[in-house]
């Protein structure tokens, strides 16, 4: 944090170097690529895999990918995936148990040792990772696999130079400028000087990698251009969530009649929770081999929108649709503050874009606050 990072400039033509260095150090390079009409995060081998020239239009319940005239690698705004799929995967076997007569032995897997290099992490996404850190590795109990991946990870962040149609990170103080938590930070600029990245570092790991890149010192002009590009993104942002009195006003809105109105539209499909980069709820399934000689415990992403989520003997605590929508919104924006000392939403806008019927958390929060 703090320390003014030394800025360098990397020619866009040399971006592949970064991937090469990471791969040489046995990192799994994951980053944006185009698949099935969207930018998704997947394993990438080379800059060829990056969504160069692609951009997107996003609004409530609608996403369209377009190939523009630009040549930027990072000219898109994040798609449906978040990085949590690499840090806290959607399904994972927690252990196997072997039965022998009356006893059983538990065999837990070793931490996988995966070293992910996350390439193209945006400010809000980095904020989200730090929110998940608080939940999964800063409390009394931790998830060791998450912690291992997190400690092993290299984060190559990228500043946003364009705001997406559903973004509201500026009002959440989580973006569009990357502030902390990264190893390397790139800002992509296309201007009269050409196509280049300003490169900043904020960790030893990051500095060691950046040192191997064929960078040159950044000029004042180049730095200014990068700053302006990010400022532009902040100005473009159309949506806001008002943080003043957020928690308490939402608590007061618990009995608002508005919840039933949203429930009329909400499909309780769980998409918002699946795309949200901070949602961490999981389910645990216990299963067996057919013969019963082995048993397994598997963890999967879960959602507070399912009926089973709050099931206790005799019925579900949150049986109505509106109580489940309320749980989701209040958890994100209010309970979270009491639980983890931060707002559970980073303003990425995914839940707005990827809600199949376009429900907007900022609008609903406003309506409930009255």
């Amino acid at each position: 944090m703090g320390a003014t990072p030394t800025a360098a400039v990397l020619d866009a033509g040399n971006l592949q170097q970064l991937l090469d260095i990471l791969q040489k150090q046995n990192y799994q390079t994951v980053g944006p690529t185009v698949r099935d009409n969207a930018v998704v995060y997947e394993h990438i081998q080379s800059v060829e895999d990056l969504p160069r020239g692609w951009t997107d239009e996003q609004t409530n319940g609608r996403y369209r990918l377009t190939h523009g005239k630009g040549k930027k690698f990072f000219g898109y705004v994040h798609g449906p995936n978040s990085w949590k799929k690499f840090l806290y995967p959607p399904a994972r076997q927690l252990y196997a148990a072997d039965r022998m007569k009356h006893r059983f032995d538990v065999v837990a897997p070793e931490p996988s040792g995966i070293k992910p290099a996350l390439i193209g992490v945006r400010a809000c996404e980095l904020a989200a990772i730090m929110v998940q850190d608080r939940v999964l590795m800063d409390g009394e109990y931790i998830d060791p696999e998450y912690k291992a991946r997190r400690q092993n990870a290299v984060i190559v962040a990228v500043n946003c130079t364009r705001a997406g149609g559903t973004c509201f990170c500026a009002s959440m103080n989580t973006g569009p400028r990357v502030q902390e938590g990264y190893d390397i930070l790139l800002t992509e600029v296309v201007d009269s000087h050409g196509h280049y990245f300003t490169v900043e570092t904020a960790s030893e790991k990051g500095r060691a990698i950046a040192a191997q890149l064929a960078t040159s010192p950044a000029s004042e002009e180049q730095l200014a251009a990068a700053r302006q590009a990010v400022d532009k993104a902040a100005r473009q942002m159309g949506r806001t969530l008002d943080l003043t009195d957020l928690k308490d006003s939402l608590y007061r809105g618990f009995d608002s009649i508005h919840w039933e109105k949203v429930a009329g539209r909400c499909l309780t499909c769980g998409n918002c929770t699946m795309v949200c980069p901070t949602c961490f709820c999981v389910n645990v399934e216990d299963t067996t081999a057919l013969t019963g000689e082995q048993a397994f415990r598997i963890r999967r992403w879960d959602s507070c929108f399912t009926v089973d989520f709050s099931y206790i003997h005799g019925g579900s605590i949150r049986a109505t649709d509106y109580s489940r929508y309320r749980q989701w919104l209040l958890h994100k924006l209010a309970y979270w503050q009491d639980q983890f000392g931060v707002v559970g939403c980073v303003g990425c806008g995914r839940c707005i874009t990827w809600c199949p019927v376009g429900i907007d958390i900022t609008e609903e929060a406003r309506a409930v606050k009255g």
Partner: protein
Amino acid sequence: MLDGSSVDPMVVRPFIIRRFVKESHDTFSFGLEPMVGDRDFRFAPGQFNMLYVYGVGEVPISISGDPTKPLSLVHTTREVGTVTRAMRILKVGDTIGVRGPYGTSWPVEEARGRDVVLITGGIGLAPLRPVIYYILAHRERYGRIVLLYGSRTPEDILFRKDLERWRARFDVETHLTVDRASGSWRGNVGVVTQLIRRSPFDPLNCVAMVCGPEIMMRFTVSELEKRGVPYDRMYLSMERNMKCGIGLCGHCQLGPSFVCKDGPVYRYDQLSDIFIKREM
């Protein structure tokens, strides 16, 4: 590798069932002993363990044994569904997985020098039993002790031996009631909350500990309030769906809290706002 925390807290520890006691037609207790490692299992009254039946599933169950005897880890369970049913058919010598102890505990220290009122219904007596053991072991530290216990029918009454022992003592007020009388029952009939009005405790210098179905707890709180017991002297044990017991799965959220770590035992002033909300 990672500061000793690389053991997944979701991995269970095998325990052996050493004793099995049938408490009633649908409720049973077992005494457990760890298969490996430290045999001294410490817990505070009110805490729970996640119990895993091999291949079937894992559920939260309170510890119902005597906290002053660390070797006897006892759980009392009512059979209501898949996992608890599978638990009932386990036998002495079988293995069960344990994770815990988790959660907050009853305020036995805070209650020092005060009257202690224990109000419970059904299986709710199980998590309170450790408190009774504890305060009876340190009887001199407390004022009057009142136990109000409601049960559906006389046949559902748990821990009969204990109850007889406690009733025989002059320094414990034990009152039982049943919803429906049957056979030779000559005791109280009616809901447990009716007993609160006539109980001999000092509302301004007592600690109330309440565990039972949510609806029973609502009425209990309101009766206690009528007697003048302040909110911050009432304690309730809550129940929510739990998949991890350690605050990572999200299932047990009750408003801003997690029942598994901020509960199950709550001081009522911390709960009063949300306790009255439906479907929270």
